[in-house]
């Protein structure tokens, strides 16, 4: 199930919250588990099993690790079992098709029949199956066993509490990547306060608005432009298209994270922040400290630091960064586009670390912003085109390959999407937040009560967009 459907908002959510609030404290985690399973099976009625297997293995790995406290070898075996198992699930479900394709390409023949693969006798089509959120829940679940091994967290003996951590529905499909450490305390003991619910509702509605009102609206422009024959696309049109995607992915992804954080608060959890105005960054390194923060910190904690981070000399630091950014690319999807996308970020970040960072600090901020956004925008081309040649052609079009600078349709797109673009530009800066703070200082009740009206209005408007998704007049049946 996804948050932006009427069934979630007006059936699943009210029912779950009512039961959750009524339930005695001791059984709240059980309600989380049940609602999470229903939530996940609604979209993945079969692969919910995959999630449960991952959960069970990590739970038992934790128990066994705890039993052998102080003994390195058995603990290490438990860790290896957990990591191999989680990465194995990812490998089979997410990467097997891609790996097979490339083996075939290198071999120059059909060594592996992609349309007829099997895993321990179970046949599957690797291209058609990717359990929703598998990249998120495997990483979340792994964080428990790794942290337990490193001694950062205590063992979770209650299977329901551990399963509740993995199946906690707000963050199950699209992050943020909540580490066990982040919620360990709240999992066993949390208090739901009026302040927390209030903050949660605001965060949730803002997130819903970002996704439903902004991301979907601007996204339709990218969908339209992406579908055009590139040969006749003007420079302006191609820029408008990729700018539309630049905004779409930010408002979509950060909207989902906001909704997750908001829902978490309503249930008494404080999830980590996932986005911090990334498009205001002045360098690529800064961008990645503000974009999908929980992913970056996951790789930092569990890959970069264990490899030695920057403590083993410059060459080793560069290598470590390269590994992390290659993996970041791979994590986003099984295709060369993502690998190149992540690796190029790695290259830029290494260059910034070596010398560019110091240069940027001396330059005017406007130039730093342009430099950062230009790279980010070009990166999105790689991120959201079908394959490398298409990405190359698109970038060529952006720099004039079609020989048309501006045409009528570009002006039409610009005029019909101008207001949406303006909303996007303002919305991805901290201006709205600053404005609210300013008004709050002058007149707090205005923010408090005006805020209620704005939130209610936004919820109503989002509802209209959700209902419209299935409005489907079948008009020509009779004509």
């Amino acid at each position, binding site marked *: 199930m996804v948050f932006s459907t009427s069934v979630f908002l007006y059936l699943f959510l009210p029912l779950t919250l009512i039961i959750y609030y009524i339930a005695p404290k001791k059984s709240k985690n059980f309600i989380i588990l049940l609602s999470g399973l229903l939530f996940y099976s609604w979209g993945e009625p079969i692969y919910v099993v995959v999630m449960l297997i991952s959960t069970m293995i990590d739970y038992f790995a934790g128990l066994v690790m705890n039993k052998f406290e102080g003994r390195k070898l058995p603990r290490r075996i438990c860790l290896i079992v957990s990591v191999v198992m989680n990465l194995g699930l990812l490998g089979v479900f997410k990467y097997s098709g891609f790996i097979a394709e490339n083996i075939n390409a290198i071999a120059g023949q059909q060594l592996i029949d992609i349309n007829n693969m099997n895993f321990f006798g179970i046949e599957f089509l690797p291209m058609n199956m990717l359990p929703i959120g598998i990249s998120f829940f495997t990483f979340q679940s792994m964080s428990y066993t790794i942290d337990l091994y490193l001694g950062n967290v205590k063992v979770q003996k209650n299977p329901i509490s551990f399963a509740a951590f993995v199946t906690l529905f707000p963050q199950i499909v699209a992050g943020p990547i909540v580490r066990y450490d982040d919620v360990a305390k709240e999992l066993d003991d949390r208090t739901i306060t009026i302040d927390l619910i209030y903050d949660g509702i605001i965060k949730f509605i803002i997130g819903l608005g970002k996704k439903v009102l902004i991301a979907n609206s601007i996204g339709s422009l990218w969908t339209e432009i992406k579908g055009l024959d590139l040969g006749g696309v003007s420079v302006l049109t191609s820029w408008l298209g990729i700018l539309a995607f630049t905004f779409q992915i930010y408002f979509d992804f950060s909207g989902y994270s906001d909704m997750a954080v908001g829902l978490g608060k309503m249930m008494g959890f404080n999830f980590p922040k996932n986005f911090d105005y990334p498009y205001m960054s002045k360098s690529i390194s800064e961008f990645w400290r503000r974009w999908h923060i929980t992913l970056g910190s996951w790789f930092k904690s569990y890959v970069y630091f264990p490899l030695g981070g920057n403590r083993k000399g410059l060459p080793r630091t560069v290598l470590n960064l390269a590994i992390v950014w290659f993996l970041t690319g791979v994590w986003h999807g099984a295709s060369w586009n993502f690998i190149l996308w992540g690796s190029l970020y790695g290259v830029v970040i290494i260059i910034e670390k070596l010398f560019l960072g110091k240069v940027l600090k001396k330059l005017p901020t406007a130039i730093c912003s342009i430099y950062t956004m230009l790279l980010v925008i070009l990166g999105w081309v790689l991120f959201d085109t079908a394959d490398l040649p298409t990405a190359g052609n698109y970038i060529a079009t952006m720099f004039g390959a079609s020989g048309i600078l501006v045409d009528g349709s570009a002006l039409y797109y610009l005029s019909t999407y101008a207001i949406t673009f303006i909303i996007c530009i303002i919305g991805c800066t901290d201006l709205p937040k600053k404005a609210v703070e300013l008004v709050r200082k002058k007149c707090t009740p205005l923010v408090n009560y005006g805020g209620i009206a704005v939130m209610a209005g936004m919820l109503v*408007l989002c509802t209209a967009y959700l209902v419209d998704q299935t409005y489907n007049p079948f008009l020509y049946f009779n004509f």
Partner: protein
Amino acid sequence: MSKQKIHKILLIVLFSLILLIIPIITIIKSVNMPAKPFSENENRYLQEFPKFSFDTVTDKSFMQDFETYFSDRFVLREEWISMKNNFDRLLGKREIKGIFTEDGRMIEAWKEYDETSVNANLAAMESFAQKYKNVNMYFMLAPNAQEIYSDTLPANCGAANQKNFIKMCYDATPSIKGIDIYNSLAAAKEEYIYYRTDHHWTSLGAYLGYQSAASVMKYNPISLDKFSIEHASNSFRGTLYSKTLDDSITPDTIDFYTLANGEPELSMTVYRGTSANTYDSLYFRDYLEKKDKYSAFLGTNVPKLEITTTIPKESDSGSLLVIKDSYAHSLIPFLTKNYSKITVIDLRYINGALSDIDVNISDYQSVLFMYNVITFSEDTNVKKLNFMA
């Protein structure tokens, strides 16, 4: 309770109320609905409660159908959709669900078409015409409001040129005489020739088609002043309205044009499946009380209609076969003044040979293909003529 918390509690209460009231009313509403609810506006039956079984759950059809079920019964469904369309307009979008609303009228946007399919249809028509050389063949392709009112559309919105399309179609069928009706419609663009809320032309628009065809089809058109106009309904909200749900556009008027000094006697037989019903009028007034008011003209689309009219011999042009879409429904009342025998067939509803429904082309003196550009460009049935006749 501390003062700082009042607004927080207020928001929580409001949020809870919205989240509770909407589903509760929706559930009450669905419980009280008839067994098979039909949406007149969307012209379809609403999704029924899906079957719950192992198979429907594992293939996710239960979940998908349930989402449609819930959304179909959502409280104030059309009001929500209308709100969304208004907000889109506020954001500067001018095209909503493929429809432009400009200058007080809704215009269906036509941007591209499947060339292969159109060419296959045209080729089938041409070889059909060559096969029946003794029958006079005519082709009337009516432009849609988009072409006539193209100047009101936003610049560069991607609307394709229908005039060129019509010329291309006529050129591809040299054995069929093309009827140019574009000019007379364009000249009358200030008149009420297209519905504001529906994709059809009005009776006046159809009359202009009738008048333009006269010189090609060689009949004497009855002049407009001989007709009396009956405003049969002035609350028609058509198919374009169903999509935009924009109440700001004035509802349309359905006009019946009848001869002022008395309509000729006629009988119309409607063939639908194995049934055949005969009427003495071309108009089904029952539909004027329903949503689908355009169907008052000759009823809804059926495979075959036969109309025989008693007209003086000197003004009778004989027998005519009309192969058509629904634009023809408002044209045919005029044609009955000049053709004593008209058979109307709709290829979309015929799958066997034409002889199976007792249509033999050689029995007719003339054949008229009557389509509008959008329907014709999307049609996949005209090419069936290759094996039908």
